[in-house]
C-alpha cells in the first residue's frame, strides 16, 4: 500500500515538473523579447533539476542549478542587457521559416514519438527515488575511468576562455570610443 502511494507521489511530481518544463519551453518560443525567453529557459532548467532529483541524480541536480541555471544563464542575461536587445522584428525570412519549420518539426516529432512508443524495450520502468548515484561514486568514475577526458576538457575550457577574451575585446584602432573608455 505504501509502495503504491510512493509511486503515485513520484508520478505526480514527475507530471508537475514535466508540465512546468514543457510550459517554459513553449513560452520560450512564444515570447518575442529575448529577456523573457531567457527567464523561461531558467524555469525549464530549474524544473529539469527537479526531474534529475526524481531520477536519483542528486549531484547532477545541484550542478544543473549551479552551472546551467546559474552561470550560463547569467552569461545570457548579461549579454542581452549589454547589447540592449529589443523585441524581435518580423522579416520575410521569418515568415518562410515559420511556414517551413513548423511542419518539418512536427514530422520529426511524430517520428521521435513513434520510435519511443513503438519500441517495447524502452517502455520498461525506471525505479526512482533510490539515490544510488552518490557524488563519491561519480567522483571515483570521473577521476579514474574518465581522467583523460576530464583533463582534455580542462584544456577546452582554457581555450574557450582565451577565445572569449579575444573575440569580445575591442579590435585595435578601429574601435570607436576606445580612447574614451580607456
Amino acid at each position, binding site marked *: 500500500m505504501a509502495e503504491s502511494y510512493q509511486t503515485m507521489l513520484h508520478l505526480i511530481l514527475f507530471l508537475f515538473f514535466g508540465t512546468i518544463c514543457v510550459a517554459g519551453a513553449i513560452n520560450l518560443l512564444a515570447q518575442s523579447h529575448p529577456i523573457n525567453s531567457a527567464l523561461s529557459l531558467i524555469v525549464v532548467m530549474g524544473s529539469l533539476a527537479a526531474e534529475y532529483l526524481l531520477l536519483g541524480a542528486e549531484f547532477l541536480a545541484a550542478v544543473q542549478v549551479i552551472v546551467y541555471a546559474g552561470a550560463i544563464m547569467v552569461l545570457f542575461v548579461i549579454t542581452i542587457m549589454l547589447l540592449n536587445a529589443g523585441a524581435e522584428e518580423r522579416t520575410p*525570412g521569418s515568415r518562410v521559416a515559420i511556414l517551413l519549420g513548423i511542419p518539418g518539426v512536427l514530422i520529426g516529432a511524430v517520428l521521435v514519438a513513434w520510435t519511443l512508443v513503438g519500441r517495447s524495450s524502452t517502455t520498461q520502468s525506471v525505479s526512482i527515488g533510490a539515490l544510488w548515484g552518490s557524488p563519491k561514486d561519480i567522483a571515483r568514475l570521473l577521476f579514474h575511468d574518465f581522467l583523460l577526458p576530464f583533463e582534455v576538457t580542462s584544456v577546452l575550457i582554457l581555450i574557450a576562455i582565451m577565445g572569449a577574451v579575444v573575440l*569580445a575585446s575591442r579590435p585595435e584602432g578601429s574601435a570607436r570610443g576606445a580612447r574614451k573608455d580607456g
Partner: protein
Amino acid sequence: MEIPLSYYLLLSGILFVCGVLGFLIKRNIITIFMSIELMLNGVNLSFVAFAAHWHALSGQVFVFFVMVVAAAEAAVGLAIIIAVYRTRETLNVDRVNLLKL
C-alpha cells in the same frame, strides 16, 4: 516506485523538438542560441533517464561533460554574438547575411 522510461524519453523528446523549432523560427541570434541550450538539456534528460534505467553511472558523467562543454560553448558563442553586434549593429540573423562588410 516505478515510472515508465518512455515518459522521461517523451519529455526529453518534447524539449528537443521545442529547441529545434526555436532554432528554426526565431530570428534573434541570442534566442537561437538559447534554443541550442534547450536541445542540450533535452538530451541530458534522456542521458540521466537511461543512466537510472541501466544503473550505469557513466551516463551521469557524460551529462557532466555535456554541461562543461555547453558552458565553454556559451562563453565563446556569446563573445561571437558581441563581436557580430559590434560590426553589424543588429541581432537579426536575416540581416547578417554577408561575410564581407
